């Protein structure tokens, strides 16, 4: 019996679980990322690799221990080390004595399909189509609701209410398998969240845009829950990096990438790997729509984000938007992060008061 597993990244597991279950396979979801996952990854991963490789490796070991025997991992050929991670992980896991097969998804759908068929047996195209449709629909709807969570955490009526609504939404969407029911759930929770916010507070809240490397942006364990921390500090969070936006780009849907490239063109005019170009383009876009600040998240030693980090000071100066760059490695103590984001929020708030933006709206803080 083939038992399939994959890496953890944010809430991606719900979509992938739906896909493989629809194809008729048993799915072993890796345990939620914990210190144990991190310890395993750090112990067996190459020291100089970036954090995502290590966490993925920990996920795989934990899932293999739970009985998984097929690993699905992303590949690629962009100028970032990620493209080669699957091969490195395969070699490490084999050296550790695990028996498994690995499917590496490359940006070549036909070859991926043949690869899946070879390992998983004859999966009909129709079944694959249905599975993909269900998985994508779940992923898009989850992102839809999470976008709302980011925008409303700072406005909630009762502390913790929005997060508990979100987790009950995730639990429910995981259990349904018809598009109609998914849509109904999405509508239901959209309304529930909107009923739980104090809209009159919106004008006095800061808006911070998040840019950076996708894994660090999507996975709260590695970014030390920064989005929730910002919400607690009364900040509305916006971002354009989502699983769904990555998929849209991958499937050539929409024209967001064109807008990002256009916005970045004065500062960076070529693809530098990962989401480096997005970080620049989105920072410019956020400045121009009037967000108060931008936070860049990246794993320590991440080449694409190091490139954008060195360009961001001039973007910050010309576009007049404060930017805070944060690089993460295996530390789990969050006191240092808390100090930096509190200071950044203070800075933005004092600036907002000073610029008179609040007074214009009739809010007097003095």
């Amino acid at each position, binding site marked *: 019996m083939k038992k399939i597993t994959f890496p953890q990244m944010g809430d991606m597991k719900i979509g992938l679980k739906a896909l493989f279950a629809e194809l008729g396979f048993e799915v072993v979801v890796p*345990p*939620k990322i*914990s*210190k*144990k*996952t991190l310890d395993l990854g750090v112990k067996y991963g190459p020291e100089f690799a970036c954090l995502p490789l290590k966490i993925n490796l920990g996920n795989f070991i934990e899932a293999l221990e739970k009985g998984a025997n097929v690993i699905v991992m992303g590949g690629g050929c962009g100028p970032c080390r990620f493209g080669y991670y699957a091969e490195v992980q395969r070699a490490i896991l084999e050296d550790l004595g695990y028996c498994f097969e690995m499917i590496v998804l490359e940006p070549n759908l036909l070859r991926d399909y043949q690869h899946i068929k070879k390992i998983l047996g004859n999966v009909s195209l129709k079944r694959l189509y249905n599975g993909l449709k269900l998985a994508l629909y779940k992923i898009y709807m989850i992102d839809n609701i999470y976008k709302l969570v980011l925008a409303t955490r700072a406005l909630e009526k009762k502390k*913790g209410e929005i997060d508990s609504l979100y987790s009950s939404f995730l639990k429910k969407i995981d259990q349904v398998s018809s598009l109609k029911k998914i849509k109904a759930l999405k509508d239901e929770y959209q309304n529930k969240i909107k009923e739980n916010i104090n809209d009159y507070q919106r004008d006095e809240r800061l808006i911070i845009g998040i840019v950076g490397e996708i894994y660090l942006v999507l996975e709260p364990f590695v970014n030390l*829950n920064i989005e929730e921390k910002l919400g607690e500090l009364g900040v509305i969070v916006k971002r354009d990096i989502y699983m769904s936006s990555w998929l849209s780009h991958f499937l050539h849907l929409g024209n967001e990438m064109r807008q990002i490239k256009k916005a970045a063109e004065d500062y960076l005019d070529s693809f530098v790997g990962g989401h480096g170009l997005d970080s620049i383009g989105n920072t410019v876009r956020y400045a121009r729509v009037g967000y108060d600040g931008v936070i860049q998240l990246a794993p*320590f030693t991440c080449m694409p984000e190091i490139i954008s980090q*060195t360009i961001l*000071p*001039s973007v*910050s*100066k010309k576009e007049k938007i*404060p930017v805070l760059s944060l*690089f993460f*490695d295996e530390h789990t103590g969050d*006191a*240092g992060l*808390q*100090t*930096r984001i*509190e*200071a*950044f929020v*203070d*800075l933005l708030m*004092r*600036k907002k008061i*000073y610029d008179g933006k609040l007074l214009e709206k009739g809010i007097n*803080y*003095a």
Partner: protein
Amino acid sequence: MPRYYLGVDVGSVSTDIAVLDSSMKIVDKIYLRTKGQPLKVISEGINQLQDKYDNSEIGAVGTTGSGRNLAGVILGADVIKNEITTHAVAAVHMIPDVKTVLEIGGQDSKIIIIRDGVAVDFAMNSVCAAGTGSFLDQQAARLEIPIEEFGEYALRAEAPVRIAGRCSVFAESDMIHKQQLGHDLPEIIAGLSAAMVRNYLNNLAKGKDIKGPIIFQGGVAANVGIKKAFEDELGIDVIVPENYNVMGAVGAAILAREEIARLKRKKTSFKGFEITDFNFKTTSFECDGCPNCCEIVNIYQDSQLIARWGAKCPRWEAV
């Protein structure tokens, strides 16, 4: 009638207390070594003030520094603020037209860019200790020179030698090699000061617009050798304020007063100087609820649990 405002900065190396009067002038300051025992040192500091001030004279209390939450629950602080904000506020209070703040403490160093009295940009070291006070402390101890005289040595140098500043391990081995070649101590110490300043400017100040007036604060500002190295490198005079070593505490006191005014509260939540009569204790345990194994810390005032932190989930939230 409240006439005084208390600021407490619990850092990794020192714990500083400042008492400000209603015109925001410093009337008292205490500088103690934290020595890894913040609870004991906070009590000690408050104890020193107990006989001079009455509870009813204290209008507000603010805490800052890496131990700000701990100090906050023990004292009953009105405001608990990060050290970047408090340092910026204190710098503007001392020199209203200040444009750049250089701050070097025990474990971390920061730069804050200020325009028109408002902080507009900042940076703080993250993974490196090469540019901090602890490293200087270590080197002073190794050379058996009291840390207070370390800076003077640098000023005596005629031709500073070059020391690698990228990393404290490189710096130390470079220093040892130069010593073994026969260079004088002042030359080496001046070289080390220059290396530290180079590292600071390369790491933290990269891409930042450093303009005068520049204010230099934090424990390391006592070091005249580092001050001179900054002036040489930047070509601008660097001001070390009289109360350079308690600026965080000053900022916390100012913000605490603002907070009381902003919330239109009549009374501070200060627990009173009697807190030194209580026995504060921390205990910790590892939660076994999930593989995260969170280290949960309990803070006790005598036998009463007053705060708890360290958990990633709400399991231990209720005190």
